[in-house]
């Protein structure tokens, strides 16, 4: 099993980013940073997918994290990227903890629809909120790191590096979680929840924990995306944003904590190139890819790399 090699793989990726990043143009570093941010959300979705649940509303936490970071900047003058991410994590985590009590009771389509409704509630609130700029949202100042404001040339690189550190670190923690009894419970919940209860474990509790973890990850991702792009608006909570995350998670599959980031990167690359080539066919391309994935590769791209199971 590759289980024990994952921490090394993550470290290797970080080093690659650190070194190669020095020669990478800023626009590519921008895409990479966004990929890490969205990959975090997809990583959270992966936790659900393993348990057989799909959340149609992860954008709720992505947006909550972004607005938390934005509010920190706008009202408290904070621009440190790590504080922004921490704020995103805290706000999203708290929200996830509270809502998790409700959501952990549902399965299947109702889990999906309820998560969707909750994300649209946030959208609805933000769109009509004048103080936060309603549909226009508002801007965020460029990030500082540990109180230092880097030159513009170095900013992209350092932001990308910070993003990599946080994202890969989070991935390592999630990987460790997946090795614990609670983490291992996911496929069991998906297959036979009743048996899980009769073994003496609480499926609801396990799902609640996963929900909070996914919320925290999405919150960090949202904050990171917000400071990188420099702007936040309510569209970050719209259901189409959740759809993008779902696409990334399905593309990645549930095999490894590295996969969601690969999925997010591929998505970012496709989005940029397909959109530049022909903005009016980008959704068609996305839809076709999603369709093909679901029909032919339901386990995600990662399943191509795994050995076939016997029997």
């Amino acid at each position: 099993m590759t289980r024990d090699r994952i921490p090394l793989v993550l470290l290797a990726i970080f080093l690659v980013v650190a070194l190669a990043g020095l020669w990478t143009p800023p626009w590519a570093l921008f895409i990479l940073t966004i990929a890490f941010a969205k990959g975090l959300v997809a990583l959270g979705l992966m936790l659900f997918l393993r348990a057989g649940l799909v959340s149609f509303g992860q954008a709720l936490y992505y947006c909550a994290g972004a607005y938390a970071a934005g509010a920190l900047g706008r009202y408290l003058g904070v621009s440190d990227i790590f504080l922004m991410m921490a704020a995103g994590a805290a706000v999203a985590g708290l929200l996830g903890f509270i809502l998790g009590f409700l959501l952990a009771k549902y399965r299947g389509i109702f889990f999906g629809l309820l998560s969707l409704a909750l994300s649209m509630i946030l959208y609805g609130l933000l769109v009509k909120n004048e103080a936060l700029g309603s549909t226009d949202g508002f801007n965020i100042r460029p990030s500082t790191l540990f109180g230092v404001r880097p030159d513009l040339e170095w900013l992209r690189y350092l932001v990308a590096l910070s993003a990599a550190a946080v994202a890969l670190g989070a991935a390592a923690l999630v990987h460790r979680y997946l090795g614990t009894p609670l983490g291992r419970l996911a496929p069991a919940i998906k297959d036979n929840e009743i048996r899980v209860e009769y073994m003496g474990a609480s499926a609801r509790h396990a799902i609640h924990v996963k929900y909070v973890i996914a919320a925290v990850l999405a919150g960090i991702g949202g904050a990171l995306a917000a400071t990188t792009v420099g702007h936040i608006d309510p569209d970050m909570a719209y259901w189409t944003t959740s759809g993008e995350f779902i696409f990334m998670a399905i593309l990645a599959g549930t095999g490894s904590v590295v996969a969601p980031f690969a999925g997010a990167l591929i998505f970012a690359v496709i989005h940029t190139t397909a959109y530049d080539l022909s903005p009016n066919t980008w959704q068609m391309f996305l839809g076709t890819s999603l369709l093909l994935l679901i029909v032919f590769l339901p386990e995600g791209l990662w399943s191509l790399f795994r050995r076939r199971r016997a029997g």
Partner: protein
Amino acid sequence: MVALQAPQGRLMPAILDARGLNKNFGAVTAASDVNAAIEKDSVVGLIGTNGAGKTTFINMITGYLKPDRGAIHYEGRDITRLAPRDITRLGICRSFQIPQLYSSLSVRENMLVALGVVLRNAGLGGFFSRREPLVPGYEAPVEEVAERILERFGLTPYRDRNAQVLPGGVRKLLDIALTMAAKPRVLLLDEPTSGVSAEEKFGIMEMVMKAVKAEGATVLFVEHDMEVVSRFAERVLAFYDGRIIADAAPEAALNDPEVKRYVVGALRA
């Protein structure tokens, strides 16, 4: 209710005590004033035709159903209203008539899930714990314990096969093995030999009983095959129409005229 004298006096204390259990589903009486005191380390067979109330009895013990009236005590503690998962944590585990497995996982992975839950309930193996916790009751790491249990139940040849594609008897064994992974104090087996070929029936029960005797546990098993019952049970509870109509040693119970009429007779043409 025809009650025969319970075999030997109350030498051992009752580990499980059901008193005055009543359960109705609308017009159907599933349990009518059921009383049973189960002695520690005894092996009790539950017999009766379908719908007689055996499974309802088990479901009330495991917490899946709550009796309308009556109480169940386990080691002196009232467990009547507890949820199934809490009852399992106390040491009462059940296997299923139709094996309940994790179909997308391999046999070994199934066992790892079961042992993982054991660890978790003991507060071990969590996110913040050190690398290799020892499974309580086995004092060895999880992977090793899994192999040991699979070996004990003859499941090692199937260890990497998907639970989905196992033959019937093996599925049954895995289901029972998963139930016993937690080393329960009280083991409830729901038709452990049903759906299994005649040659395998005795083999399965032998394996189970051997493992049980090694650990020391109280066993209640629901069974339709009277040969299995007479061979393995020390005591038999015969159900009919929601009541216990006989409570005695196998030979006495199986020869009781009411039992013959309502249970055995009904099963043999």
